[in-house]
């Protein structure tokens, strides 16, 4: 219907130059429907075959594999994170241990040095005390000597003086007088 009316109208209005086989609307030219439907069915069958046999299973497999890989990777990352945390804890512990050890060594060394120092001081003190005692003893001896000497000299001098003055006196009396005088 479209063909005949369209052609007639086209001829009448003078637009026939674009082909007699082209009625107003090519979509309504039912002579061509068979051709289009035939090729459409072939094209759809080809696409359906390509998609259902090859493309879709392949893409589905790739997507599933990727999802699996991502899950695995996340699990592995979680694992590694845990390991890193453990390692950090171990490091911290080792550091604390080392610090404690070092403190201990420092304290020990300090105590040792202190002990040595104390021993040396005591020894030196003892030596000094000994020396001082010796010195005092020597001084006492010298003092005693000196006193004895002075007594002798005083006795002699007294005897001499007494003799000089024309008195006679025995040595014992002079000595006794000098001694009592010297004692004061």
């Amino acid at each position, binding site marked *: *219907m*479209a063909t005949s*009316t*369209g052609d007639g*109208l086209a001829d009448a*209005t003078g637009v026939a130059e674009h082909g007699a086989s082209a*009625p*107003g*609307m090519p979509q*309504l030219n039912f002579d061509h429907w068979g051709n289009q439907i035939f090729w459409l069915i072939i094209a759809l069958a080809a696409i359906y075959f390509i998609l259902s046999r090859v493309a879709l299973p392949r893409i589905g497999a790739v997507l599933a594999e990727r999802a699996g890989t991502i899950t695995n990777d996340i699990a592995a990352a979680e694992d590694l994170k845990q390991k890193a945390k453990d390692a950090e804890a171990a490091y911290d512990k080792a550091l604390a241990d080392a610090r404690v050890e070092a403190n201990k060594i420092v304290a020990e060394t300090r105590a040792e040095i202190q002990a040595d120092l104390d021993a040396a001081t005591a020894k030196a003190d003892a030596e000094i005390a000994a020396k001082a005692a010796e010195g005092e003893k020597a001084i006492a001896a010298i003092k005693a000597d000196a006193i004895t000497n002075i007594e002798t000299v005083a006795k002699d001098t007294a005897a001499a003086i007494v003799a000089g003055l024309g008195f006679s006196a025995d040595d014992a009396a002079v000595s006794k007088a000098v001694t009592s005088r010297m004692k004061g």
Partner: protein
Amino acid sequence: MEGDLAHIGAGLAAIGSGAAAIGVGNVAGNFLAGALRNPSAAASQTATLFIGIAFAEALGIFAFLVALLLMFAV
């Protein structure tokens, strides 16, 4: 003279395209208003939006088809 009347009819049928435009605008505008009130629900309703637009637009396309038939097939 017959052709001229067909052209007038085609022009009248083209008014239907404008009516379809109002319909599509209504759908899209209401969707936007709803989406701005509850943006989190908007993404899940885009399919409904397109279906609504498609139904509204189909009637405009029918008007266009009537115009074409009047122009070329009557």
